[in-house]
């Protein structure tokens, strides 16, 4: 089999998007769902085949995984130097990503047949899902940074379309706008970074950029590291700008504000886009350019580490105080992506040193599985209860057995309890942090405990807790929804046993990662502590949560209101930017620019008004003027001649 077949993996969802989008009104909505699912299933099989072919047959050469450009075509030939091509780059992380994306997307496609049944716009939903899957796969397979940018924006627009899926709800419209504007703002940084990098290297291709910018003898490296601005070189600035784009898409502090609001979209969308795939694009971007960060711009890598570490702590604290189950999951996503960023940030380059890189990709992989499972489980709960709020739930274990068990597995996985997948990936991250940065290591231990606490809080409040009186008996979801749940639960249990360091490493050379019990055991203990505290507080209906909230009043209120970051943004935009910049600019535009144009127009109109009486259309008046003129001329000539 030829690896160039990988180009069909994104193209099939694109074809599904075109068919569903253009011809969707011609057939019954359910066929749109079936078409999307079947198309994605083919993509899924193809990506498994590509993964097998790459990892076990073709990819390895002399003990090093090769970066293979499986397909490439010139897309824009602007000048001889400026050529943008589109293709598919096959290397360990891109293969891992296509497997993650197609798996989760397939599960979401299947799940949505049940979840979205009877919704208005079912076909549109599937068309957008296809568009998203296409863009995400194009992003991970990108051979050059410009292709990545194009697909980066495409996932942005499909995220916008899907958050605003219920466009009749003003809150959904506001959320989709917010997501789009915030990520666009971050993408500005990404674009600046791309331009700086391609200015230095004269190329967009990853296999041109990375060697040039990591070789200390190359022209690009030397010109990039000379110029200093605020104490950092051009190269460092460029990767920090690129990271800004990644931070926007991955919702890192302080650009995280759009993600909790993005939960306005349908739940399967939250599972696919805002938990498992799109939001990890930022991590993927940093991982893609990782050699540059690690070898040429260690300061940039430190920024990544601290932003990730802070976000993980910050979001975990907020998650403890929320009541909307999807928002809790959103903040937990923020926290887990913070983990991945941090793992990249504390990683070195090559061999054992690159453990953080492996751990980050490993956590990305396991997180995609268990977070998709959590969201889909939350969707099943919402489907049964018709509410997002934990206060409306309780004792659901009696009504939703399958959802209950799968959700419990997911909670144990994210809490890092062995033998579930999250334990292994989190352990690797902790080891990497321990080796490189003790401060962040302590923070991550703390976050592991908080994570276990808030996830168990969610679990106990929903499935145990008080005996809620329901208007109608909650019913278990249909099989199209439970099959993905079971599949993902199985994946959450098993994927942890993959020896990731055999496949993914920072320098493409497989190595053997050791297991550190001295770090794993305390992390299990702190997770168990978090779970047991939550069990004490929420398993039975108690007054402990209220009393705790009262005793921590100021802090609790601040966390409940997400530390007023949204308000801060509103203050900055509405009060400062609008008043100091936008209003004066608007005044200038309205009064000076428009005023000049209007003045010219009005003057012309007034002058015309004054003289239009001369053109009366009456021949006799013209004749009178004409004759008067002739007489006048006659008198003048006679007067002259007579001289």
């Amino acid at each position: 089999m030829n690896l160039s077949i990988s180009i069909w993996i994104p193209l099939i969802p694109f074809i599904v998007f075109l068919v569903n989008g253009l011809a969707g009104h011609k057939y019954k909505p359910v066929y749109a769902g079936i078409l999307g699912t079947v198309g994605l299933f083919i993509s899924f099989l193809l990506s498994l085949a590509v993964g097998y072919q790459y990892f076990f047959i073709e990819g390895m050469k002399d003990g090093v995984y090769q970066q293979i450009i499986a397909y490439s075509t010139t897309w824009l030939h602007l000048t001889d130097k400026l050529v943008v091509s589109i293709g598919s780059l096959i290397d360990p992380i891109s293969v891992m990503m296509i497997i993650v994306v197609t798996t989760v997307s397939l599960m979401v496609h299947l799940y949505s047949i049940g979840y979205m049944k009877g919704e208005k716009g079912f076909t549109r939903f599937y068309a957008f899902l296809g568009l998203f899957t296409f863009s995400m796969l194009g992003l991970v397979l990108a051979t050059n940074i410009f292709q990545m940018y194009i697909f980066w924006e495409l996932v942005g627009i499909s995220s916008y379309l899907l958050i605003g899926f219920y466009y009749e709800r003003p809150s959904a419209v506001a959320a989709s706008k917010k997501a789009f504007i915030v990520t666009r703002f971050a993408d500005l940084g990404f674009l600046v970074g791309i331009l700086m990098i391609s200015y230095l290297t004269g190329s967009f291709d990853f296999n041109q950029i990375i060697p040039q910018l990591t070789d200390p003898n190359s022209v690009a490296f030397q010109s990039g590291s000379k110029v200093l601005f605020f104490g950092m070189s051009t190269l460092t600035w460029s990767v920090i700008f690129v990271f800004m784009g990644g931070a926007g898409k991955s919702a890192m502090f302080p650009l995280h504000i759009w993600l909790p609001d993005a939960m306005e979209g349908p739940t399967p969308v939250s599972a696919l886009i805002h938990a498992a795939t799109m939001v990890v694009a930022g991590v993927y971007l940093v991982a893609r350019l990782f050699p540059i960060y690690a070898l040429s711009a260690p300061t940039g890598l430190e920024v990544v580490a601290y932003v990730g570490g802070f976000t993980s702590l910050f979001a975990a604290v907020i998650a403890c105080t929320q009541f909307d189950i999807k928002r809790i999951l959103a903040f937990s996503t923020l926290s887990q992506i913070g983990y991945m960023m941090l793992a990249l940030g504390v990683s070195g380059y090559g061999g054992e040193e690159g453990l953080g890189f492996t751990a980050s990709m490993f956590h990305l992989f396991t997180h995609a599985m268990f977070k998709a499972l959590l969201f889909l489980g939350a969707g099943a709960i919402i489907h049964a209860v018709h509410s997002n709020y934990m206060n409306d739930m309780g004792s659901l274990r009696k009504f939703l057995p399958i959802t209950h068990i799968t959700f419990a597995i997911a909670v144990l996985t994210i809490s890092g309890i062995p033998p579930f997948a999250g334990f292994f990936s989190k352990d690797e991250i902790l080891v990497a942090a321990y080796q490189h940065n003790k401060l962040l290591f302590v923070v991550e231990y703390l976050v592991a405990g908080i994570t276990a606490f808030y996830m168990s809080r969610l679990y106990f409040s929903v499935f145990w807790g008080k005996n809620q009186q329901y208007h109608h008996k909650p019913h278990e979801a249909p099989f199209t929804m439970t099959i993905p749940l079971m599949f993902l639960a199985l994946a959450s249990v098993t994927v942890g046993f993959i020896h990731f360091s055999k496949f993914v490493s920072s320098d493409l050379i497989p190595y053997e990662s050791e297991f550190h019990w001295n770090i794993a055991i305390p992390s299990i203990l702190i997770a168990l502590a978090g779970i047991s505290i939550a069990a004490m507080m929420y398993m039975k209906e108690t007054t402990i949560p209220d009393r705790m909230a009262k005793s921590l009043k100021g802090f609790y209120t601040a966390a409940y209101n997400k530390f007023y970051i949204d308000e801060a943004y509103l203050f900055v935009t509405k009060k400062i930017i609008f008043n100091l910049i936008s209003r004066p600019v608007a005044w200038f535009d309205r009064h000076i620019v428009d005023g000049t144009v209007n003045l010219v127009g009005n003057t012309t109109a007034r002058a015309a008004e004054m003289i239009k009486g001369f053109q009366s259309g009456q021949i006799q008046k013209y004749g009178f003027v004409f004759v008067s003129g002739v007489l006048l001329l006659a008198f003048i000539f006679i007067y002259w001649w007579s001289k």
Partner: protein
Amino acid sequence: MIQGIPIVHFLIVSTIMFFIGVYGFLVRRNLITILMSIELMLNSVNINFVVFNKYLFPDQLQGHFFTLFIIAVAAAEAAVAIAIIINVYRRFNNINVEDVSDMKY
């Protein structure tokens, strides 16, 4: 040759006629009257042609020919103008030039 009448007399007559025509053309609002004024102007020019031909170049005939042409053209013009005037009358029930202003700005 008209004996004993100096050329100036003819010219005075034709000038008076011409300016009566100009005056009528500019002042009257009735289309028929305007047409008549135009005929007056044409005829004053005819008189000039004939008189100049007769007094200045008695052995040539260009002035006479011009006069005949003008008479013929004036006849055609009168026919066209009266046809227009009839149409105007049918449409507006009026032949006052100031009322015929539908195409004005």
